[in-house]
């Protein structure tokens, strides 16, 4: 029983990180029909940007904003201007394939210019354990969970409470009408890309201390985020959050109770079942099929 609690907390912590990544993923899909197959690599890269800043002599506290700034530039602005805008006019599928190529490119670039080995990464949350309800729980899990929840709550508040957030939603739901009532749709789409870049940088900061910085770690992360987004509901921010938490917990529980060899299979089977029986996701709305 006590073991179960540990697993749940650890699962929620990784799940919260998946949720952040999945939210960024769904935001891109909603505003610009971008299925970003490089989302996992997007999470892998900022940690290396921060490490590079530290190698250049910056202390850790300074490396964090540098890393975030660089990822806003590269993964937000650069990604939109250089890849999404020119390819999207050809359709959704070429864009998806272009992001697959981008994933390969990022992975190889990190391997070539940084290292093929896993590098340790400092944690923003101090190590140690804390007593909750008389049980010792890892401080790192709690800290990651708290920060992730903070980010998600902050983002939801931004989207639902502020004028810019409303404009973003309008731009996502109906660009034509949004344009008519004076929403600067192009700027809103750019903003989504910047938010995604910020979210992946945050996720990178939180998850890399747990799994180490490695050029190939994006594959697993990206897949977890896709599954979270689809299981929760591709067109809903809260769906992606629920999906992320669910996948994190399922992943950890299946590692303990199913088999370590097939732990990766359980979320995949969940994904196939959801797609077959409820393709709009647990919390999603059914998308009308355009013919």
């Amino acid at each position, binding site marked *: 029983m006590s073991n179960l609690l540990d697993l749940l907390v650890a699962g929620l912590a990784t799940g919260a990180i998946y949720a952040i990544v999945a939210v960024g993923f769904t935001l891109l899909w909603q505003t610009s029909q971008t299925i970003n197959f490089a989302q996992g690599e997007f999470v892998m890269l900022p940690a290396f940007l921060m490490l590079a800043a530290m190698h250049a002599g910056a202390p850790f506290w300074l490396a964090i904003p540098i890393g975030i700034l660089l990822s806003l530039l590269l993964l937000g602005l650069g990604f939109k201007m250089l890849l999404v805008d020119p390819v999207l006019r050809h359709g959704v*599928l070429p864009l998806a394939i272009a992001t697959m*190529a981008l994933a*390969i490119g990022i992975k190889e670039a990190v391997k070539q210019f940084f290292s093929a080995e896993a590098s340790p990464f400092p944690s923003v949350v101090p190590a140690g354990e804390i007593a909750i309800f008389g049980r010792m729980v890892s401080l790192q899990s709690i800290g990651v969970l708290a920060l992730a929840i903070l980010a998600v709550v902050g983002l939801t508040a931004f989207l639902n409470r502020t004028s810019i957030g409303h404009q973003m939603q309008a731009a996502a739901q109906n660009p034509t009408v949004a344009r008519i009532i004076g929403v600067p749709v192009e700027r809103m789409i750019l903003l989504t890309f910047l938010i995604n870049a910020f979210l992946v940088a945050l996720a990178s900061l939180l998850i890399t201390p747990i799994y180490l910085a490695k050029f190939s770690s994006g594959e697993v992360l990206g897949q977890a985020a*896709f599954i979270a987004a689809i299981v929760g509901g591709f067109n809903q921010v809260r769906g992606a959050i629920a999906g992320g938490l669910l996948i994190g917990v399922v992943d950890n529980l299946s590692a303990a109770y199913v088999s370590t060899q097939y732990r990766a299979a359980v979320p995949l089977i969940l994904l196939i079942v959801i797609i077959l029986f409820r*393709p709009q996701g647990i919390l999603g709305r059914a998308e009308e099929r355009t013919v």
Partner: protein
Amino acid sequence: MIGSGKHLRIGLGIVLIAGLIVVPVNFNRYGLFILSQWAVMTIAAMGLNLTLGYAGQVSLAQGAFVGIGAYAAAIMTTQGAPLMAALGVAVVLCFAVGWLLGYPALRVQHHYLAFVTLAFSTLAFLVFRNEDWLTKGIYGISNIPRPTIFGFATNRPLPFYYVCLGSLGIVSVMLWWLIRSPWGRAFIALRENPVRALSLGIDTRRYTLMAFAIGSALGGVAGTLYAPLTQYIDPVPFNLSLSLDLLMMVIVGGAGFFFGPFLGAMIAVLLPEWLRFTEGYYLMLYAAAVILLLIYSPTGILGILDRFLAERRAKAASALRAVAKSGLEAAP
């Protein structure tokens, strides 16, 4: 004029085929291995081209079908069964699994389908890695024999290259016929406008499943050749990146063009060898090239060629018209 173009194309085809047969005779072991690999990957990419390029269904699982075929061949031939039997098993198995995997395609489209097939691909990899009793897990299966065909042993690289090339030839002819048959036209109708296809009485359900199943079966054929080619298989080559590579081969060459996979596989298999001097930068260059290609021409290299030829034909036609017009005006 059209007639001479056709003759030119047939001539070019014969020269190319003769080249593929004659030129490698003096190749070393490694060169033959690379060329055989090209033939095998072309078969797999042709299968995917049928699913993606002709029927318009995205699949990220072709690598898994190559894996299924390779394991079927490895397991059966190391137990003493002939490769032909393994080929039959692989084709039937991949056809059946592909058919089942096509069911989600009936319910969901595009990105969802990509994710279902992606999930399947990862699941297949986990089975290859974890089911030790069947696949020997991460240790892999070694000493896979090469077949003896009509009494000829194909152990040496050159004869086995001809086996791969011959298989590629047979598959090409069959696919060429398939695409020109009513079935092939139904596949294209499915891609262009599924609703209209349905209204014209095409059973879109059956053809979608069929496109998936035939494409997957070709992946299995490629796999049964892959195992005796490398003579050792483990799960690693059949992970998701093979599926992505195959998808990119189809896109780079030109999805929906018959010769697209030939070109795409050539670029993916041979180019790394020629670009060896760039060392670790090769895959970065490749990724950048694919992105640039998609920006410029999402229909791949053959798409560029096609556009160029269409433009030239239009120009030639308008020049003819101009001549005819001036001729008409000059006549009283």
